Every structure is written in C-alpha cells, then in structure tokens.
C-alpha cells in the first residue's frame, strides 16, 4: 500500500516535472539554446498566478491566462533581447549559459524583493487528499495535474505533427537548413518555440503553487529537474522529455520506499548520470550530439 501511495505521489510530481521539462526540451530542440533561465518562467508565472488568485481574488481562469501571457512574454523577451544579441557574435555555449544564469539570478532576487522571501501558497481545497482506499490518499489535484499533463502533450504533439510551424520546429531540431525549405526564417520559429515552450510551464507552476508552494529560489530546482528530464528523455524529443519527467518524479518518490529520505534527491541525478553513461541518446532521442 505504501508503494502504491508513493507511486501515486510519483505520478503527480512526475506530471509537474514533465510539464516543465517539455518546455525546456522544445526550446532546446528547435533553437539549440540551453535555456537555463527556463526556471524563471516557472517562477514568474507561479507568482503572477499567486498574486492574482490569492491576493486579488481574481477568478482562476483569468489568473491562469495572465500567467500564460507572462510566461510567454518572458520567453519572447529572452529570445529577442538576450539570446539573439549574444548569438550575433557566434556566442559560445557558455556565453549563453552565463547570460541565462544572470537573468535567473536577477529574476529570483527581483521576486524576493517584490513578493517577499517566504513561502507562498495558493490555498485550495483541491490539494487536500482524500482517503480513497484505506491507507491510500489521493488529492483531486493529483488527478487534475495528470489529466492536464496528458492534455497539454496531446495538444503539443498535434501542434508539432500537424501545423506548418510545428513541423518547422521539429525540422529545425533535425537541421536548420531544412527550415528555409519551408520558407520560414529560423528567427520566427525560434520565437514560437520560446513562447510556447515557456507557456507550457504554467500548469506545472500553478500546481506547485497549490501543493509544495512557491519561493523565489524555486526556479533553480525546476531548471535542474527539467534539464535532467530532457537528457533522460533524449534531447529535442517532446515525448522523451515527458517520459523523462515522469520517470524522475516516480524515481524521486519511490526512493522513499527503501532508501532514507535524504537520498531521494540524489536518485534523480543517479538516474541522469546512468542514462548519460549507458544510454546517452535517452529514451527517444537521436544520438546526434552524443558521440
């Protein structure tokens, strides 16, 4: 029964991880930009939602919409005003990395100054779990987050599989020249990637705000996990990132079954390390970058 409980918890957390990882993976896949400031999009949208929903009591759909807009706007801003200028000089991988990290640092402290440095939660009955079978507690939000995750992924894979721009994005991750064939300039595609990739973190952010709670530093942790999930799933593969996030969420929680709690975080990165050594291409990734 414990196992089942941990499994359910794992699914819930995994859904959130998957939702954040997918954004990172989408952006990286189609722009080859290692967007370490991805966590900031998460933090920003989470705090926007919290501020609107629990401070100003705005109805949740409006708050959610605002959060989506904020996240997308942040993504576009990064692409347009940070990454593009840097890449004008054939920037090295780490130039981008440091710039993104600088942004992350800025946002984190800005949030701290504006919203305070404590933990903020959006109180909702949804996060209260009910004993469905004896010993097995499930919160409505668990079901909701899993459902939403599935929804987002179906929408996303439709978008990537059917729409013109979506196909272009996939093409871009295969090889940039292909996109010109589509008569699209990579810049546009990149903007879409950033807008959409950043927007999909919103559900994860909101669910986190309702369950674990937000704090200004949350972006870093999110970034680490989505990075790990992306690698485990295979860089550039949305499906992979989703499974990767799920796997990490499950691993982190199932670790409690036999291991002492303090090792659960490490498990994530053991999984990551193992994957890189033994299966660099991840679940679905094409091992182009891996040697």
């Amino acid at each position, binding site marked *: 029964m414990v196992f089942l409980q941990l499994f359910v918890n794992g699914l819930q957390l995994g859904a959130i991880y998957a939702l954040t990882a997918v954004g990172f993976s989408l952006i990286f896949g189609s722009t080859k930009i290692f967007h370490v400031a991805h966590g900031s999009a998460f933090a920003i949208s989470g705090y926007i939602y919290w501020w609107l929903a629990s401070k100003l009591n705005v109805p949740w759909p409006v708050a959610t919409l605002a959060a989506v807009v904020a996240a997308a706007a942040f993504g576009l801003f990064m692409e347009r005003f*940070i990454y593009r200028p840097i890449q004008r000089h054939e920037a090295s991988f780490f130039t981008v990395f440091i710039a993104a990290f600088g942004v992350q640092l800025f946002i984190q*402290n*800005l949030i701290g100054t504006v919203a305070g440095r404590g933990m903020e939660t959006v109180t909702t009955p949804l996060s209260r779990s009910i004993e469905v079978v004896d010993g097995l507690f499930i919160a409505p939000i668990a079901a909701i987050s899993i459902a939403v995750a599935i929804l987002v992924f179906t929408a996303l894979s439709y978008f990537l599989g059917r729409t013109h721009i979506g196909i272009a994005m996939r093409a871009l991750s295969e090889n940039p020249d292909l996109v010109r064939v589509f008569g699209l300039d990579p810049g546009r595609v990149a903007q879409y990637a950033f807008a959409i990739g950043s927007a999909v973190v919103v559900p994860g952010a909101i669910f986190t705000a309702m369950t674990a709670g937000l704090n200004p530093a949350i972006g870093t942790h999110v970034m680490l996990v989505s990075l790990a999930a992306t690698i485990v799933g295979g860089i550039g593969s949305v499906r992979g990132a989703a499974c990767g996030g799920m796997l990490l969420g499950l691993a982190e929680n199932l670790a409690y079954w036999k291991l002492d709690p303090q090792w659960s975080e490490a498990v994530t990165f053991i999984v990551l390390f193992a994957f*890189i050594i033994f299966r660099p291409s991840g679940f679905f990734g094409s091992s182009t970058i891996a*040697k």
Partner: protein
Amino acid sequence: MTTYIINLAILIGINAILAVTLNFILGYAGIFSLAHAIFFGIGAYTAAIAAMKFGADFAVATAAGMVISGVISLALALPALRVRGEYFVAASLGLQMLAVTVFSEWKSVTGGIGGLIGIPPARLFGFDVSEPVLFLGLTIACLAVILIIIRALVRSSFGRSLKAIRDDETAASALGKNVALLKTLAVMVSSSFAAVAGSLFTFYLSFINVESFVLEVSVQIIAMVIIGGTATLLGPVIGAVIVLLLPALLTYLPYLPPTEIGSIQQMIYGLAMVLLMIFRPSGLWGYGSDSQKRGEP
C-alpha cells in the same frame, strides 16, 4: 582596512586558481564541466582531515588533496569520453549534485552541513604562515606556480593536442591522437590543481562545510572563466577579480534600503553578467569581438 583588502585578495587568489584550472579543460580542451567545485571540495576536505588527524604540513595536506582529487576526477573523465556538448554538461551537473549529497551525508568524514571546525593554522615547513599577509603570499605563490605550469602545458605538444581535440575531435584522432587518454589526462591535471585551491581555502577559513562546494560555486567559477575570456592565460584571473570584487564594491552603494541590500546586489550582479555576455561575449580578456566558435560544444 588593510586586513579586509588582504582577506579579499586571498579569496580572489583562491578563486583565481579555480578559474585558471577550469579554463584549462574548458578553454583549451573544450570540456565544459559544471562540477569543478567537487574537486575544490575534495581538496578542502582532504587537507582539513590531513591537518586535523595527522597534523599535516600545508604542503603535505595539499599534495594529498591533489592525489585524491586527481583519482576521483576519473569519474568526470568517464562521461567526457562517452559524450559531448550538452550531454556532458548534464553529466557533470549530475555528478556535482551527487557529490553535494555525499559531502553532506558522509558525516563521519565531512561533518555534513555542520562541517569541519577547528582546522589548525597553516604551517609550511615548520613555519606558521597563518598570518594574513604571509598567507596571501602563499596563495599568490600557489597561483603563480599553477599559472606557469599551465602556460607551459598549453604551449607544449600536450596543449596543442588538446586544442586540436577541442577544434575537431575526428581530425585529431585521424592524426593519431589518443583522444580518450588526452582528455583523461587533462581532466586529472585540472582537477588536482583545483584541489590546491581547496587546501588554501581550508586553511584560510579554518572552517569548511558543504555549502562552499555546491553547484552555485561551480557556476560562479564558470562565470569567472567566461567573463574573463576562455583559452586565455590571464582572462580567468581577471574574471575572478571582477566576480569577487563586484559584490564587495556593491556593498558600498549608499542609500540602499538595508533589508533589500542583499537582493539589490544580487540583481546588479546578475544584470552585469547578462550585459557582459551581450556586449563582450568573448570575455574581457578575449580577442575583441572577433567570432570565436571556441567553446561551442
């Protein structure tokens, strides 16, 4: 006042060693490690234990740290041989996180988050060098020696081979270069010199705990290298000076609301990073703004 400057200078020196050693693999061998703080830590812990348990001399403690760090660095070399680019970055990240867990859980050795307290003052060949001025001298000496060695290495055939691998691994191997061995050697050299910084840090603070060897530290070291300029000898040193001096200077900003001062400093620091990368991506000491693909994974 002078003591403050001296103390700051010591910290800068220690970080400069870290930046220079990281630059050796990052700038010259194209190995992008997010795990440099691990070897800083291993050096620090080894030196601390050597000094506390066996009353070891600075030189001995440092040597011990270098050896152990060099051996453990094989864990980093392994992924460096299997994968490249973002994959390796992620691998080193994973390693960094694991190391932090080990540092904080292996309490019998590292003292966990409580850390190791009461590390004896540094002695070198029987002389007490814990006096700030003397210790600064020691730090600068270490930095100088490491700079000289790295300069020699970079200009040697070894250095050329590394650069060749950085620029094109396939061509390098087609010219008979044993890429695996070369990379492993590079990582070992870099890691064992990083341990020197760790040893200095230990004797300087006389208290260490895991918080000084976490991911943020690794990132800060990278920042030093990139801001200073990769694959240049002095770039990383400049980077270290700037990265440590900037916050120190910011603390002199007048009229900041006291409760916000920390955040505002951090914001300015973050902003500075971004602007530098936008307007001088090749680093302050790098080759002007000419396009350099070096560092591209």
